[in-house]
């Protein structure tokens, strides 16, 4: 079967700094891969590269069958990315933000409402993004990603700021992934929690990826 993500000695620059210095990575469909590594190891950069938000400098990168060196926009409508920021508009309410994101990527308004419920934000549906608390924003960002009905879900420290309920939502998403034909890459420092849900762990150190040695 065709891999969802295939990187070969991928180099990615931030300014002139090689944040990724030759990464090899293969992710098969339906996998939940945990990306671990210290602060500044390059996790965010790797996820942004796969999302097509950063250009590839050297090496090969293929996501969902698209060669990123040639075109890094085509695959995006099947990919959802939850980054350190929420990608939402301050002056729109939670529901409006969700609906805009869903419609923009061709999903229906009901998908947006379903996502709102799934992340437990019904009560804040009419509160504008600027007024949400940090954790509510994280939930909204996750909701936006889910509303887009992606095939590949990239999560960058989704635990940060989530309370116990929120984490349970997240666990449920990871658990359901295999059944829904959803591939997940999750960067996180909540290793204890995530390891048990992930099918595999990849450790990033100084811009390079290694398979984790399971204790």
């Amino acid at each position, binding site marked *: 079967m065709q891999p969802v993500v295939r990187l070969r000695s991928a180099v990615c620059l931030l300014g002139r700094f090689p944040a990724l210095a030759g990464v090899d990575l293969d992710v098969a469909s339906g996998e939940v891969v945990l990306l671990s590594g210290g602060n500044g190891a390059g996790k965010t950069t790797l996820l942004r590269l796969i999302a097509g938000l950063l250009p590839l400098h050297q090496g090969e990168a293929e996501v969902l069958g698209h060669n990123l060196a040639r075109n890094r926009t085509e695959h*995006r409508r099947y990919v959802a990315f939850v980054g350190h*920021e929420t*990608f939402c508009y301050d*002056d*729109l309410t939670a529901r409006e933000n969700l609906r*805009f994101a869903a419609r923009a990527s*061709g999903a229906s308004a009901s998908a947006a409402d379903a996502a709102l419920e799934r992340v437990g934000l019904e009560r804040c549906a009419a509160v504008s993004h600027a007024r949400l608390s940090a954790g509510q924003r994280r939930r909204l960002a996750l909701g936006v990603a889910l509303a887009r009905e992606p095939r590949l879900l990239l999560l960058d420290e989704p635990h940060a700021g989530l309370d116990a309920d929120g984490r349970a939502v997240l666990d449920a998403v990871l658990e359901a992934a295999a059944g829904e034909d959803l591939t997940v890459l999750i960067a996180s420092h909540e290793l204890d929690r995530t390891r048990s849900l992930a099918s595999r762990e990849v450790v990033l150190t100084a811009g390079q990826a290694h398979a984790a040695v399971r204790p």
Partner: protein
Amino acid sequence: MNLAQEASLVAGKDLRIEARSRVTLQQVLPFGLIVLLLFAFALDPDRGVLRDVAPGLFWVTVLLAALLAISRSFAIEAANGARDGLRMSGLDPAAIFLGKAAAVAVELAALEALLTVGVIVLFDVSLGAIGPLLLATVLATVGVAATGTLYGVLAASSGARETLVPVLLLPVVSPVLLGATRAWEAAIDGASSDAWPWIGVLAVFAVLYTSIGTLAFGPLLEEA
């Protein structure tokens, strides 16, 4: 969704944000009126030239207000990394361009309508040949909105969005400034025939930049 639907989704989003924050109405418009007044003031009414320079003043003011409107339009995308969200959304970049430019054009049109009233009252100008005047205004507005949106995204990728847009944009839209001013002058004098060549220039400009924008917005949006 087809291009028009996508564009109207984006325009709708921008206009809804505007309706909620009222930035154009409550801040850009007063700014325009004040600039109009200040310029009139600085150029000293004694010399009796104000009536003649009214079209020039009007369009200078519109340009300055347009700078603010565009800066606002991209400030919206800069907050919370919304720009990355747009990039990930799978919307056609051409639609994003058209949508954002349309929203700016609508805001500018509202602004111009009110500023025109200001000019009529302040400078005692009567509009003369309405047809060419209106046409020139619409074309100039489209031209400014398209160019502004294009340069807005160009500057947005750099850190200093607020200050880069003016520098890049003003020289490029200077033909619009001149064309619209001359067209207004001709129309106000009732000399429609003199206005048409300028309207032609404005039309070329509007079409040209709308096409360039539709083609170039994608690559510019991608710029890291």
